[in-house]
């Protein structure tokens, strides 16, 4: 049984099975959580290209699966991503149960994850574009609600993600032609331009990011949040994989400044625009833009020192987004709108959700003793040669801090709510777990640094 069968085919089959078990929500939850946890643990502890033993049974796990002459390759360096995505699926499945989202969410999220892993592993690279497009199309049914009009944000999400596919396919075609000879610089620059445009559409990189806040504002915020959490992380890893595979692109003079400038623009605009919002769902959308910006700046470091904040940022981003989305969904309840004006005194009814939202926001801003702080410190110390980038990044973070303080003032101030506690036990458990992990990463960065980074660095150097 090859690695792609385990981490692509099995989740896809699970998605099909879970689709027919939608009415049995408890069973569906058990299967999805169990499978995600198992696949996540397997990714963490089982070497690919070696044997997996259960008693006397020995199963070989080769890295390659071939379908119609195309290879799907999942190596040991992909294991950290697999572990991240499947362990985060445990959280998303539990959260789906906790907030009572659509029964379609679990099967569709499995199908999306399966397509995204296929996109990461497929060779030749140009097929990734098609798999990402399939993931986009498959996730649409969970983004809309019966009887509610499809909003502009969701349509723009579909448009921008679809526009990326042709650019990536064309870039892949050009690169497959020039791989043997790099003499035609015109073709190489054209390929770089197409790639840049494709990834910019996929990731919502400045100036193609304006759909993200609108997208957050519409229909089922929980499903939208899942998409905003999983897609950018997966696509940025596909991008990293691709940049690493092309020496001329990695060594090109334009890559670092382009990544840095785009990332900084996203951080600054994301933060400053977030500070001007009244709708909390839009605030989360801008925070997602800011976080993606930080990932781009992390990649631009292009050193081993840069790899560390990148992987820490991916981890902290996943945690923060998960916590923010769950907390906001709990606070929102049945209402569509959640503004600064209607959260006054919510702390009494939703104590853990309000704390979860505030901690998620403070952590996204890079406040000390929280999850993002260690990676921001490494990033800023590595960027001392470009102080302007640091100033603008700090401006984005300060703007997020300002809006968080405003949210905090509303939670604890205004009219005093006399309602009883509204949070369920499962919601408390999930928010509590998220808070503890964010605090542990922030308070004991050196412990995490040693244990996690030693594991990641081993995986990244293994073949």
């Amino acid at each position, binding site marked *: 049984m090859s690695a792609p069968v385990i981490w692509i085919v099995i989740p896809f089959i699970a998605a099909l099975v879970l689709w027919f078990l939608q009415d049995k929500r408890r069973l569906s939850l058990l299967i999805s959580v169990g499978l995600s946890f198992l696949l996540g643990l397997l990714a963490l502890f089982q070497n690919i290209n070696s044997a997996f033993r259960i008693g006397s049974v020995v199963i070989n796990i080769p890295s390659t699966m071939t379908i119609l*002459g195309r290879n799907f390759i999942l190596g040991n360096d992909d294991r950290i991503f697999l572990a991240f995505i499947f362990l985060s699926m445990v959280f998303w499945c539990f959260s789906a149960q906790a907030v009572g989202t659509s029964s379609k969410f679990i099967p569709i999220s499995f199908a999306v994850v399966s397509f995204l892993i296929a996109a990461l592993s497929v060779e030749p690279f140009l097929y990734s574009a098609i798999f990402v*497009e*399939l993931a986009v*199309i*498959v996730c649409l*049914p969970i983004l809309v609600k019966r009887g509610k009009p499809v909003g*502009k944000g969701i349509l723009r999400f579909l448009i921008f993600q679809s526009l990326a596919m*042709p650019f990536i*396919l*064309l870039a892949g075609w050009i690169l497959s032609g020039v791989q043997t000879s790099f003499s035609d610089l015109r073709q190489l620059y054209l390929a770089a331009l197409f790639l840049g445009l494709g990834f910019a559409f996929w990731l919502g990189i400045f100036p193609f990011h304006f759909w993200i806040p609108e997208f957050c504002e519409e229909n089922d915020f929980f499903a939208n949040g899942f998409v905003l959490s999983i897609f950018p992380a997966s696509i940025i890893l596909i991008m990293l994989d691709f940049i690493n595979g092309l020496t001329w692109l990695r060594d090109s003079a334009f890559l670092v400044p382009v990544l840095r400038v785009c990332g900084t623009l996203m951080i600054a605009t994301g933060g400053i625009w977030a500070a001007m919002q009244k709708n909390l769902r839009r605030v989360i959308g801008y925070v997602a833009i800011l976080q993606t910006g930080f990932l781009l700046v992390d990649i631009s470091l292009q050193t081993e020192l840069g790899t560390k904040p990148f992987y820490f940022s991916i981890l902290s981003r996943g945690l923060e987004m998960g916590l923010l989305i769950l907390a906001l969904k709990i606070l929102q309840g049945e209402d569509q709108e959640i503004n600064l004006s209607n959260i006054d005194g919510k702390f009494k009814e939703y104590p853990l959700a309000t704390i979860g939202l505030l901690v998620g926001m403070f952590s996204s801003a890079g406040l000390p003793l929280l999850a993002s702080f260690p990676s921001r410190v490494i990033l800023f110390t590595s960027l001392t040669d470009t102080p302007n980038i640091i100033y603008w990044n700090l401006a984005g973070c300060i703007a997020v801090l300002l809006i968080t303080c405003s949210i905090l003032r509303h939670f604890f101030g205004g009219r005093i709510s006399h309602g009883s506690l509204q949070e369920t036990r499962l919601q408390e458990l999930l928010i509590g777990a998220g808070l503890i992990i964010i605090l542990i990463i922030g308070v004991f960065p050196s412990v995490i640094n040693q244990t996690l980074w030693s594991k990641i660095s081993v995986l990244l150097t293994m073949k």
Partner: protein
Amino acid sequence: MQNWLNLIPIFFILLTSLVICLGTSWRSILVAMAIMVFGLFFLYLQIWDIFMTGAKLITGWMCAAILSFTTAYQSNVEEIGITPKRLFKIMALIMVWMVAYVISSRINDLFGVSPEIAFTALALIGSGLLQLGFSSQTFTVIVGILIFFFGFEILFADLENSILVNAMILAVDLLVAFVGAYLITITRQEANE
């Protein structure tokens, strides 16, 4: 121009893209889309064998058919006459065609694609983008995405002859039509009931 007979399907493709862009009614849009696919069929015949070309034709028609299932949920209000909005759309589309004509020779230099196919592809890509820019309704957005893809596909067909890639792109076309039909029906169902 390598083949003057290509002017006939290209004329129909441009005409249908104009009809789609003006968007008089869902019926005219879907009929125009089906004729556009038929026009593209003749251009594909110069690149591929009849089997792959036939697959493209059938997929395109199936996309139109899938979208036609949502007719019960479409507005029947038809815009009549030449309004300033329509005039602006026509002007914009003509500009797109002019730009496509100018760029097509450069595409020919870069990729070695025949100029008429490059022109058709760019004109369709431009029309699709224009449609996406003008519309905020699910139906017209889905049609816009499909036209954009049709334009890209004819360009890509001349470059990449892998059956698997092209088959997967066809699957994406069908899924876009399916998901479009789903989005239209699910969001209008309750309102209609």
